[in-house]
């Protein structure tokens, strides 16, 4: 998992139904349904389309008797009945495909009165039977435990009595519960130094990244200039190239320039690695802001630069936040460049310090685990809180969701 995966919400990714792509998809799906459905059905056009199982008063739903319980095995002969015809029913199907949030609201309101009247009958994958749901819960419990287990284990280790090395017994709860590991971490001067270094690297990268990326992205979005397309291509292509691919010449360069073991060297290296993605993402975002806004501001007497600073930027806070977050993560958790370019213990960021603690023969894992928790906790909280914004669309490469 690389930092690239902390990708950003594509401003163009929406769930709107009035999206060409969605319409196309639905049309595709309709076609597929037609092709794949076992039999043809007839549709009673006198009734408005309803969800299966819905019985408006006095109108038994067509083919109600024919609805299957779950567990009908595929291939079993289907009882005859009147059901939905899926061909040539475009007009009648329109309500299903009604676009726009409003229509959806109406439709769902109309078609789904009180829950009590609405019973799930079919084996829909999204509304499965009770049994299925139970099994699913069990499965998810098991998988969740598996996924969370390593994280739990480290937290447990950090709370375990350090008394030297650990015993070889397997115990789920901390043996000899203690907070001493944490107090040792917080009492370690090296830890504080590394914490400070991490803040410097992360903060410096964030600041520099923001300043550089915003301006450049705005230019790419709003202006045309010579060299625009080739450099834009470079932004796209470089997103797939990891920093490690250029680490060797960069290393030689830094050695010759004396940038090894300096804050500045690593900060600009990090910034450069975040720029392709940040610029691309911000450019895509700016693209969705109509230029009328700046033109309106101009009419009000602002210069173009002012329009940018005072009008567009404030509108871009979400994208700014994401650029900042991404840059901060890079600076905080990046490992390889740090380990190659920083030799002196004074400048070690926290991630590298963690690694060096492990490297020694008599690792005291309580200590390591405590430091790991302190290092990871802020990052994890932010991730969990902002997960929706961090995923969503695949803007690396600028995919339109």
């Amino acid at each position, binding site marked *: 998992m690389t930092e690239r995966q902390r990708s950003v919400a594509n401003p163009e990714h929406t769930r709107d139904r009035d999206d060409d792509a969605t319409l196309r998809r639905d049309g595709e799906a309709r076609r597929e349904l037609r092709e794949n459905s076992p039999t043809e059905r007839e549709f009673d056009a006198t009734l408005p389309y309803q969800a299966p199982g819905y019985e408006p008063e006095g109108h038994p739903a067509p083919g109600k008797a024919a609805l299957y319980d779950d567990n009908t095995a595929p291939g079993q002969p289907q009882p005859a009945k009147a059901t939905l015809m899926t061909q040539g029913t475009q007009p009648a199907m329109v309500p299903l495909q009604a676009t726009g949030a409003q229509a959806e609201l109406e439709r769902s309101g109309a078609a789904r009165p009180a829950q009590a009247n609405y019973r799930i009958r079919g084996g829909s994958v999204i509304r499965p039977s009770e049994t299925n749901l139970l099994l699913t819960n069990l499965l998810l419990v098991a998988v969740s435990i598996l996924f969370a287990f390593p994280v739990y284990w480290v937290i447990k280790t950090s709370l375990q009595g350090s008394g030297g090395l650990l015993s070889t017994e397997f115990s789920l709860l901390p043996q000899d519960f203690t907070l001493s590991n944490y107090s040792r971490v917080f009492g370690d001067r090296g830890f504080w130094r590394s914490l400070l270094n991490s803040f410097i690297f992360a903060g410096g990268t964030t600041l520099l990244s923001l300043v550089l990326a915003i301006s450049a992205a705005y230019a790419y979005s709003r202006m045309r200039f010579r060299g625009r397309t080739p450099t834009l291509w470079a932004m796209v292509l470089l997103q797939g190239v990891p920093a490690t691919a250029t680490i060797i010449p960069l290393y030689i360069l830094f050695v010759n320039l004396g940038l090894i073991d300096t804050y500045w060297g690593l900060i600009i290296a990090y910034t450069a690695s975040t720029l392709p993605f940040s610029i691309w993402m911000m450019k895509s975002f700016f693209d969705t802001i109509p230029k009328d806004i700046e033109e309106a501001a101009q009419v009000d007497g602002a210069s173009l630069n002012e329009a940018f600073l005072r009008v567009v930027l404030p509108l871009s806070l979400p994208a700014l936040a994401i650029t900042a977050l991404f840059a901060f993560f890079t600076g905080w958790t990046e490992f390889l460049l740090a380990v190659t370019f920083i030799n002196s213990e004074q400048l070690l960021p926290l991630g590298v310090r963690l690694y060096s603690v492990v490297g*020694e023969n008599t690792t005291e894992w309580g200590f390591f685990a405590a430091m790991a928790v302190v290092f990871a906790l802020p990052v994890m909280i932010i991730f969990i809180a902002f997960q929706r914004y961090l995923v969503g669309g695949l803007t690396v490469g600028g995919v339109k969701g």
Partner: protein
Amino acid sequence: MKYSKAMVATSVLALLLPLLSACAGSPAAFIANAEAASAQNGSTCPRPLVIWPATGDNEDAYLLDLGRQFQQQSGVGLELLDMPFDDILRKYVTAVPSGKGPDILLGPSDWTGLLGEGGYVVDLTGKYDTGRFLENTVEAATYQGQLWGVPKSFEVVAQYYNADLLEQPAESFDTLKQLSPGLAGGNYALAYDITNFYFSAPFLYAVGGELFDENGEFVLTEEAATAWLTELRDLQNEAALPREVTSESANALFRGDNSATFFSGPWEVEGFRELGFNWKVANLPAVNGQPARPFLGTKVMFISSTSPCQQAALDFIEFSTQPEQEVAWVRDVNAAYLPAARAPYEDPVLAESEAVQSFLQQAETSVPFPNAPGVGQIWTPGLDALTAVLNQGADPATAARQMVETIRENLEVRE
């Protein structure tokens, strides 16, 4: 336009300023500056000397102590930077060309060729009299005729044996093979880190193989390698050695009186002394009448070429290799520390130490560890070959061929 211009100006300045200052030097410039500064400083140094020692923790403390004594004498202090052994060389070759790095590096003689020819350390040819050191150790600090450092200590792998279990040390592989039936149940005749090339290589020389010749050329033949692997395999089988032994487990077996012999170096002495069992040191067993020839690993003190206090560094090196300091080291820190200087051996502390004398004796048939750059290429192929034959039952001839070819390929790439 104000915004854009202002922003550009600031960021460009902010970016370039550090770069400009960084452009102050290239490696060559740093070295030249350092020489000039050293000439100016003479025997003084505006800041404490910095040493990067590739040693254990006890010795770190003792080095600092030496530093304090030196400071009283000369006014120049000593600082020590500790780091994992695997990282030291990489950090050194990164730091020195950048103008950073220590004044003194205490490292194994394997590095002499690389550091010397690469320009990382100061050429001491003609500037320092090495007559008072053992010849083998001076050889280790010399590459292609130039003296690149001052030898500090050496170590050699020898045979430890449990005098309670054995009256005599094992003299040859055959002795070992005959031993095992006679030992009490559950005990091994021998347990050592057999797949580690460093510990098994002495027997390669015993069967007539040679790794590098005087010019640093790789001259190992497949026949020798095959013979060597075969002998070891036979030893493992016929002397009933334990399988898949690691150095920790071999150590544990010997300490626990569960194995009669153990091949290792002087660094074990301190640990064994504390346990107080009856151990002794002797030469390694011979193979088919030929003596085993372990590597003579020398620790050398190098002076960085970018140090501005080169004379002061040399003074400290001189000071730390005086008999008085060396003897104190043996007495207080490490009973099996083997100084490279000759004089300390006349002191009773060393003269009467059985361990020291035994190691010294083994050192007479030792092979100075080659110090050409690229010598580090032998370890992994050696390990692979040993593991294949001893742990996985591969055919010695195939493994030998694989090993020789791999080493040759790796060395070619480095030309």
